[in-house]
């Protein structure tokens, strides 16, 4: 069935194909007659896609479960913000978001360039091709598919078990892990980044095809913008992982995290290459465009990793069938870019350029760029080859006995070299080169010496972990390197950046000053992040298995190692602020309004028990319970009989399924019930079932040696879509986090895990510096030769 949303998608597909034809005619045959409609068509396409996205959001907000996607990822009792974010909880919605942002970028490109230059026109052509590809991808698994198209629903309707216009009364609900503020911002950041990388990619393709100048200028701001959004998306994902248990800190080398990190690395490489390429067009004339293209390909690859199901990831929030089209997209782009790159390489005239030797700035910069490529490859390979082995040999393999060990040991040495290169490049001065080389060698020497320092447990791999013993010898060899060895290069990098910042600040004119400050800030960012990551992951103190009886509320309980915990309060609440119970089964008001259609059929209701009557019949003894159930829309009696007394009390939340009778006269209670549901005890279950998000919250204080070091609430969220923990995280100015995980009340005991995590704030500050720095760089529009 073609829904309104699908119609809009088809219309935007038509418009973009039309615009593409117009541009192609102009470009290849110089035919103008369609050209004047191109910009309006692109604008209209972008408008329609934006409208379709808003429409999807509207369906979410209004809980329109006629749509399969809405049903899958939402329920009516979610707070508004999670209804809105539900639109990007699954693949269908994120693709729509992706394609929308891509077309907004295309519209911006059209608006600002008017396609006057060949470069702009051709970049738009490639952008539109990508856009069309993505619209098709979105349409294959449309977010606007109706629930009536589900095979099981079709079957049930054919059997007559469901009405032909079936609309589920309630949604499936949002995964509890996604019910978190950070999760509302993470996907849009990621997908805006995924979308905006298309422009630098398209410009790079055009450049490789035609050798036309101006590609770097065209894509420059877009690349920075992508870097910012992708980077922040990854960072927010890290914050989220940190705040929701089960991921082992803010970075766990989960395949999906890693997959999104790879294009960010190559994009960082691209930004470095581009900064030199723009000064001298022959520098990195192949490396720069190839890196832009590779980043785009890796974004498509990340999309595959998230949804293919081939990769063992905690991101398994949806499954799907767009894999083949994505793989073909990757294959085509890869082949095209390799061919184009090779062609450029062999066409390039043999420049009789003077070879400046290894220690020239360009060559050290080239090493830096290659280091980004190496780091990207390590990550790429670590998630790819296990999937490859599984596909080809049907064998499951791990990359190391503990997955994260693989990435840590291989990335560590190259990160140090990168820091050394950073220190050298940022402080590069042709005149003092010999002196600077000396400094570099000293730092290198210190790095090598410190690698051998022995400590209690401050190594690349954790020697106390059960996985340590099982790693092969070379992994152990690298794992044995003392992490103290990161400090010489870290200090060197900091020192260089400070020097460079001072130089920038001495510049009189304002633009280079701002831009230079931005560059320095970004490089400070990486120092902060690495410091925070290294310290926090190596010096975290964990006390597991803390069980505090609820009865000990208000008392300070000693949990060992000098730490103590005091429980201040325990409470439960519904996540949704409107506390009307929206429950499984039929609303009582609906039954009340047309009882005739429910009498003598099976009916399911749920709600709170407002009154209970327990009766005992003469031998053979049976127990009868009458209970009045209120679901906020009305109340209804239900009754059940059992051989043993049932534990039903007032205030309980129950779901009851049973046979509805009318005008039932009970002598034992001396009442005539106009409507009553008879149910067997098996058909009565606790809780109001579907889609209810209950939060258990424990307020507590943490003490160290009798002194309070942290307080707050640790929460546990339970829902039909699984459960999630939201730890108490109390940061102090010193950067040490008190982190308490609460796993949900069990048997009157509050189970807790306490972690004392130092320096994690440095990582967050580093991320902020990244953002501030790149925004400063973007704020300065430097003129270049192309414009």
């Amino acid at each position, binding site marked *: 069935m073609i829904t309104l949303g699908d119609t809009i998608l088809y219309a935007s597909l038509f418009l973009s194909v039309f615009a593409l034809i117009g541009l192609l005619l102009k470009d290849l045959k110089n035919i103008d007659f369609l050209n004047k409609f191109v910009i309006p068509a692109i604008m209209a396409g972008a408008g329609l896609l934006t409208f379709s996205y808003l429409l999807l959001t509207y369906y979410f907000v209004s809980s329109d479960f006629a749509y399969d996607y809405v049903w899958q990822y939402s329920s009516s009792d979610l707070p508004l913000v999670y209804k809105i974010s539900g639109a990007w909880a699954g693949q269908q919605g994120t693709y729509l978001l992706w394609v929308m942002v891509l077309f907004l970028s295309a519209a911006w490109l059209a608006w600002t360039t008017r396609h006057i230059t060949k470069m702009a026109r051709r970049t738009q052509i490639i952008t539109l091709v990508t856009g069309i590809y993505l619209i098709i991808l979105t349409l294959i698994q449309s977010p606007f598919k109706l629930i009536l198209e589900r095979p099981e629903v079709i079957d049930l309707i054919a059997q007559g078990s469901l009405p032909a216009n079936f609309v589920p009364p309630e949604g499936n609900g949002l*995964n509890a*892990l996604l019910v978190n503020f950070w999760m509302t911002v993470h996907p849009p950041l990621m997908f805006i980044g995924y979308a905006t990388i298309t422009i630098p990619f398209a410009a790079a393709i055009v450049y490789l095809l035609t050798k036309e100048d101006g590609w770097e200028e065209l894509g420059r701001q877009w690349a920075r913008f992508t870097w910012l959004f992708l980077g922040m998306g990854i960072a927010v994902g890290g914050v989220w992982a940190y705040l929701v*248990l*089960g991921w*082992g800190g803010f970075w766990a080398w989960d395949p999906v995290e890693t997959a999104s990190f790879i294009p960010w690395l190559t994009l960082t490489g691209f930004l470095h290459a581009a900064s030199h390429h723009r000064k001298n067009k022959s520098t990195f004339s192949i490396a720069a465009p190839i890196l832009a293209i590779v980043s785009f390909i890796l974004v498509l690859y990340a999309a595959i990793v998230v949804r293919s*199901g081939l990769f*063992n990831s*905690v991101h*398994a*929030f949806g*499954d799907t069938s767009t894999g083949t089209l994505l793989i073909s997209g990757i294959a085509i782009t890869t082949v095209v870019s390799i061919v184009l790159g090779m062609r450029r390489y062999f066409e390039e005239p043999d*420049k009789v*350029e003077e*070879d*400046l*030797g*290894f220690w*020239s700035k360009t*060559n050290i910069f*080239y*090493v830096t760029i*290659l280091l980004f*490529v*190496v780091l990207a*490859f*390590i990550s790429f*390979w670590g998630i790819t*080859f296990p999937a490859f*082995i599984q596909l080809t040999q049907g*064998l*499951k*393999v*791990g*990359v*190391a*006995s503990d*997955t*994260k060990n*693989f990435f840590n040991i*291989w990335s560590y040495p190259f990160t140090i070299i990168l820091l050394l290169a950073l220190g050298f490049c940022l402080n590069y001065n042709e005149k003092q080169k010999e002196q600077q080389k000396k400094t570099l060698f000293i730092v290198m020497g210190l790095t090598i010496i410190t690698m051998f320092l022995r400590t209690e447990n401050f190594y690349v791999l954790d020697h106390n972990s*059960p996985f340590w013993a*099982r790693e*092969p010898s*070379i*992994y152990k060899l690298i794992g044995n390197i003392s992490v103290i060895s990161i400090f010489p290069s870290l200090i060197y990098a900091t020192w260089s950046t400070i020097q460079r910042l001072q130089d920038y600040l001495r510049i009189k004119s304002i633009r280079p000053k701002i831009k230079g400050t931005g560059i320095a800030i970004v490089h400070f960012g990486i120092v902060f992040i690495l410091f925070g990551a290294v310290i926090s992951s190596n010096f975290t103190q964990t006390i*597991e*298995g803390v*069980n505090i009886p609820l009865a000990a509320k208000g008392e300070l309980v000693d949990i060992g190692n000098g730490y103590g915990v005091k429980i201040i309060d325990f409470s439960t609440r519904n996540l949704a602020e409107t506390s009307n119970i929206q429950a499984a089964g039929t609303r009582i008001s609906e039954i009340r309004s047309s009882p005739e259609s429910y009498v003598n059929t099976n009916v399911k209701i749920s709600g709170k028990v407002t009154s209970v009557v327990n009766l005992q019949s003469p031998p053979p003894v049976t127990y009868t319970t009458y209970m009045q159930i209120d679901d906020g829309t009305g109340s209804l009696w239900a009754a059940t009989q059992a051989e043993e007394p049932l534990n039903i009390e007032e205030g309980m939340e129950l779901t009851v399924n049973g046979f509805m009778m009318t005008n039932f006269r009970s002598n034992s209670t001396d009442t005539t019930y106009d409507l009553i549901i008879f149910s067997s005890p*098996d058909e009565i*279950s606790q809780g109001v079932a579907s889609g209810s998000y209950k939060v258990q919250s424990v307020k507590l204080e943490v003490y160290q040696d009798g002194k309070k070091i942290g307080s707050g609430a640790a929460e546990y969220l339970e829902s*039909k*879509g*699984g*459960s999630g*923990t939201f730890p108490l995280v109390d940061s102090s100015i010193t950067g040490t986090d008190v982190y308490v995980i609460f*796993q949900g009340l*069990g*048997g009157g*005991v509050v*189970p807790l895990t306490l972690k004392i995590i130092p320096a994690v704030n440095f990582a967050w500050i580093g991320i902020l510096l990244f953002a501030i720095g790149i925004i400063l760089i973007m704020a300065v529009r430097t003129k270049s030769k192309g414009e």
Partner: protein
Amino acid sequence: MRTKKLVSILVLILILSFAYFSYITALKNFTLSDKNSSYLGGIKFHRAAAGLEEGFQIAQQENKPVMMYFWAIWCQYCAKFQTDTLGNTQVKQILENDYVLVAMDLDIDREVAQQYSVSYPPYLVFMDTKGNVLQRVPGAVDANYLLPIVTKVRDDVRSK
């Protein structure tokens, strides 16, 4: 130009040898075969969807509750969970004697996992003989936490 070429070739060799080496190492050391049951704590489990059906039959005959354990070979927490929690003497004894145990590989038994809304390992689902879910225990909880649950579920099912 020559320096760049040289560096590129060196890096290419480095990358290729790293790729080859890690590939071989993984095949040699880290083949994760389900057959060795390394993550199941030395306890016998019924396996997969077929095992679940089988499990319910036994459960009905013997009036035992069913515990379904969702795990995955890549799950770091499962390793500790199976030795310390499932492997705890008291817990293990109750599980082996009074439960019908079914293990689900989260990678293979995806449909079952979806059916029971399980999205990450380790994850325990306790059920009565008819398949009604009585209790869910998500995450790598410790033995002190699990012991009262396995006792209570067992007693509840017995008393029915």
